[in-house]
């Protein structure tokens, strides 16, 4: 427990420092570094990861892929409920917990997303958004090879999730790593269409991904009703 508390304090300190290091209008103070990271990421993604995901799409039948996505989304929904609680949103908490109960039970351990079929929509909360609700700034934007776009705040949320996620409690190392691997494949699989959209649409893929990511996170932070954005200087 003390260990956990220390981790949280260290994290809070990192968030505060990160938040202060940022200028008021610049989301991406480390742009040259991030662009270098993106230059590492893109060829690996295009020549290794993308063909691999295409293979996964061909080999694994569609209902199985959907069941895998649903399984991991169900775990995300559980964390969404936890974060609803941390943000003091009782309605969303009930909604997301209801989803987990329905899908874990009737939906066979999360393999079938019954809740969406009956119109209970996903809450999409996470630790990064909770830190935002608690008043931490988003901090500098970061691009991490193979992981993708994030910010100091969202990345910290992701680390918290990794520490406390249920997969970490699986004692068998091979099983645990296999599940982490499958989760990573599923994440990338769910992003496949978005990646080809960026290739079609973007003049500068790095900048396009950055703005799309930051817009999406702002939208989620404000539960779908972000304040109107002023034009950048």
């Amino acid at each position, binding site marked *: 427990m003390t260990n956990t508390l220390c981790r949280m304090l260290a994290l809070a300190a990192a968030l505060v420092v990160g938040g202060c290091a940022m200028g008021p209008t610049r989301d991406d103070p480390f742009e040259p570094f991030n662009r270098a990271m993106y230059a590492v990421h893109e060829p690996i993604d295009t020549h290794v990861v993308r063909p691999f995901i295409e293979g996964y799409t061909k080999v694994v039948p569609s209902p199985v892929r959907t069941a895998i996505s*649903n399984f991991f989304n169900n775990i995300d929904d559980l964390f969404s409920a936890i974060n609803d609680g941390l943000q003091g949103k009782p309605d969303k908490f009930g909604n997301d917990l209801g989803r987990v109960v329905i899908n874990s039970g009737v939906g066979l351990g999360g393999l079938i997303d019954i809740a969406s079929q009956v119109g209970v929509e996903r809450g999409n909360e996470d630790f990064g958004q909770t830190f935002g609700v608690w008043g931490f700034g988003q901090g500098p934007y970061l691009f991490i090879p193979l992981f993708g776009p994030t910010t100091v705040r969202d990345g910290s949320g992701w680390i918290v999730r990794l520490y406390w996620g249920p997969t970490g409690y699986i004692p068998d190392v091979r099983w645990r790593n296999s599940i982490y691997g499958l989760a990573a494949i599923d994440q990338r699989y769910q992003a496949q269409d978005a990646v080809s959209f960026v290739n*079609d649409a973007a003049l500068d893929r790095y900048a*396009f991904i950055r703005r*799309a990511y930051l817009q999406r996170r702002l*939208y989620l932070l404000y539960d779908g009703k972000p304040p109107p954005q002023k034009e950048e200087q």
Partner: protein
Amino acid sequence: MMQMIRRLSTALLLATALFATAAHAQQAPDALVKSVSQDVLDTARSDPKVQAGDAARIREVVEAKLAPHFDFTHMTMLAMGRNWQKASPAQQAELTTQFKTLLVHTYAGALSKYRDEKIEYKPLAPNPSATDVTVKTQVIKSGGGAPVPIDYSLAKTADGWKAYDIIVAGVSLVTNYRDEFNEQIRNGGVDGLIKTLKAKNG
């Protein structure tokens, strides 16, 4: 007598045609979004060339059925922001043409991946005095999975309602391009942006 009847029927035909055009122009924005998207998707489903992935044919469909309902000048102005004033009328026209081509190509690319997703349309509360609305839709994937919200921003013009932005899962296309345009202009001026757009479309 015959002549009069003929003249009358011509007048009637003309009136019907005029009325039809006016009705289309006056169609409520939510009904417009629904009829235009359904038209595009029905064509995508039934056209054998589209089904075979013929990129030129998919672009033709988008150009003919979707593009007339977008205000590309308005979109280009918004994506340019304060830089719009720096561009000459000729540059503004060229930017609009190139941006339109890029958007049509991008939409055609997305349409070619369309399978049998269903679209849910959320009706707007009727408000006759509104001049700027957001029509909300949701794409439901066939195998389950999370629905993707897609919103359309439309403005009322003399020529009926015209879309000027698409917001996919909270990501506004126009806002995304504003960053891109800004950066291109900072590096190479308005002509630099035009050159980049042309290279992308070529």
